[in-house]
């Protein structure tokens, strides 16, 4: 068929019908990620041990600094907020069979877009908040749509384009922050501070951006299951041929899903700018997009499970700095732990060797191995 195109991303566990339950059954669906995380911590602990630090001490420092006081909790929630959004962005893509590894770029252009909308205008608070947030989302959506349109109409793999768009975004915002939108009379490249009317408030220890992220996750949990558009997304993701035969426009769905995915990543960037940083500074948000991939896979492409997955990553990222400060362990140990988590979750290591799922059935059904 002419629309076959590059291979679809098949996770083997995209299961849009909630009544069916996932392939593994509900207990293992939760147990596998948890065991994977624990295993990753164990291996990470060995690395820490060889750096001459007691791994238990290191992990205690890490978690205490993140969860031990209200200051830490606030930072965890702030850290988790954009992660929930980038995780969701990847999840929405996966559901349609698209692998959006460009959440980083979409988030970046949205962050500077929201900063511009925040400092350049003076508007009543509610209007300004909506405008800046919306403008950031629009930037993210537009950025992702380049990849969506190319995928739908020119059959260009979104994996390559989104990665390329990440690099382009970095150069572009660097240019903008150092020239067009630069804060005057400052040696460093960054935009001016946003107006107070565009700043997202924090209520006690709860940043409003975090609340928005929770609501958006729940919304998408509902959207993908209960709406006709969500049904289109799932159908295109599971079987694009059948979708086409059923009268669903695959091209339109791909473009739309990519735009939604970009808007979500963009929301992450906008919320970060408006709620935490207050302006745009290049490189303040490095890595958020890639953590989104880990989070989405850890959450098994389920929007609601994105929340705990993102919080876990948020805790690690928050604690990592204190870890270096107090024990001298490089904060990059978190990258290793997250990479290992991803490995254990996505590769059938845990499911096959610890839970022995499919092992028996496989050996029977597959002829020779």
């Amino acid at each position: 068929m002419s629309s076959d195109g590059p291979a679809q991303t098949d996770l083997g566990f995209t299961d849009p019908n909630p009544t069916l339950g996932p392939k593994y059954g509900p207990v293992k669906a939760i147990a596998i990620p948890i065991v994977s995380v624990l295993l990753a911590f164990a291996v990470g602990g060995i690395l820490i041990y060889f750096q001459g630090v007691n791994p238990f001490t290191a992990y205690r420092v890490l978690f205490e600094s993140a969860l031990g006081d209200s200051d830490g909790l606030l930072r965890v929630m702030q850290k988790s907020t954009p992660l929930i959004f980038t995780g969701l962005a990847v999840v929405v893509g996966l559901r349609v069979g698209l692998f959006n590894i460009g959440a980083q770029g979409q988030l970046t252009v949205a962050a500077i877009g929201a900063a511009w909308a925040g400092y350049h205008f003076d508007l009543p608070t509610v209007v300004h908040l909506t405008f800046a947030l919306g403008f950031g989302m629009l930037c993210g959506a537009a950025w992702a749509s380049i990849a969506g349109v190319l995928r739908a109409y020119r059959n260009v793999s979104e994996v390559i384009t989104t990665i390329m768009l990440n690099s382009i975004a970095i150069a572009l915002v660097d240019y903008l922050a150092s020239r067009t939108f630069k804060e005057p009379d400052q040696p460093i490249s960054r935009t001016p501070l946003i107006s107070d009317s565009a700043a997202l408030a924090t209520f006690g220890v709860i940043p409003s951006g975090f609340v928005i992220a929770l609501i958006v996750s729940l919304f998408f949990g509902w959207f993908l299951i209960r709406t006709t558009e969500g049904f289109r997304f799932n159908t295109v993701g599971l079987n694009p041929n059948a979708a086409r035969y059923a009268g669903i426009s695959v091209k339109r769905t791909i473009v739309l899903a990519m735009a939604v995915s970009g808007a979500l990543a963009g929301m992450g960037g906008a919320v970060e700018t408006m709620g935490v940083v207050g302006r745009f500074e290049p490189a303040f948000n490095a890595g958020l997009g890639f953590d989104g991939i880990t989070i989405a896979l850890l959450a098994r492409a389920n929007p609601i499970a994105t929340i705990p997955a993102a919080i876990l990553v948020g805790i690690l990222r928050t604690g990592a700095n204190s870890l270096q400060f107090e024990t001298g362990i490089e904060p990059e140990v978190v990258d290793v732990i997250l990479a290992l988590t991803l490995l254990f979750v996505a590769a059938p290591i845990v499911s096959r060797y610890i839970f022995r799922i499919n092992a028996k059935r496989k050996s029977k059904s597959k002829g020779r191995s």
Partner: protein
Amino acid sequence: MRARWAWTLTVIILVGIMFSYTQDELRTTSVLSFSLRYAIPLIIAAMVGLVCERSGVINIGIEGQLLMSAFAGFFGAAATGSLIIGTLFGIGTGLIMGAVFATGAVAWKMDQIISGTIINIIATGLTSFFYAQGQVLPASTPVVAIPYLKDLPLVGPVLFNNGLFTYAAIIIVIFLQIMLFLTIWGLRTRAVGENPSAADTSGINVQRTRFINVTLAGGLAGVAGAYLSLEAAGTFERGFTAGRGFTALAIMIFGAWNPVGAFAAALFFGLTQGVASQLQADEVVDIPPQFINMLPYVLTIVLLAVVAGRVRPPAAVGKPYEKD
């Protein structure tokens, strides 16, 4: 149709180079040398993607394989004081990364894109964590001029006065072109990538073919990685492969999954970058440096948009082999 288009472009570029050479010998030579240096890692990395995809496996993890082997090559050389040992470290690491990727994408039949992404994330994590500052290479890689050939006008200084990796890259391309289309390995590899079940029923072990090819391709990524840190940059920084693994996939596509085609595509890439940098340096045009940096990425997208619909990937690429 596409071939004619490509040939026309090639002829125009060659005429342009010749003309430019008559105008300004020095600059032309320097731009071309730059272009070649820029193209070499892309060429080798494109061969990685090509060997994998011809066998039916999308390797999105080239970036991570490059990064790991560049890392191992550099720190191996710095620690042992030997460029040769460093290179071997790089290639060995590439092979290991190839085997790891093959384990996921072939043996475990995981989604190939996700397997590749895991490779990338692991590579980023490990190289960041173990990165150490202040290491230096024992020496810079030797430049080997080929007698007589090096004295030819234009091609002499550009092609025949280079580091060993450059010659290696050219040999790899020619070698693969021959292997792929004239040998039994090539016929079987292409069969596995086009219709694995036909290959299987013809008595070819699809899984083993894929596993071996993907692993060996990892060794090639090791060569490219070692080149990056040992010859091209002479150092290693976190994340310094800068998306080359992905650009290489685009180059593989422009080359229509042919080694020689990919070679030409990579040179074209290098040339664009070389000309733009030269124009920038000469202040002929005032392009902000950020836009020069963007150029290869923009070019990748634009060319993919033009070409991707017209070339045909191996039919079975991206699908783990399951007997029906």
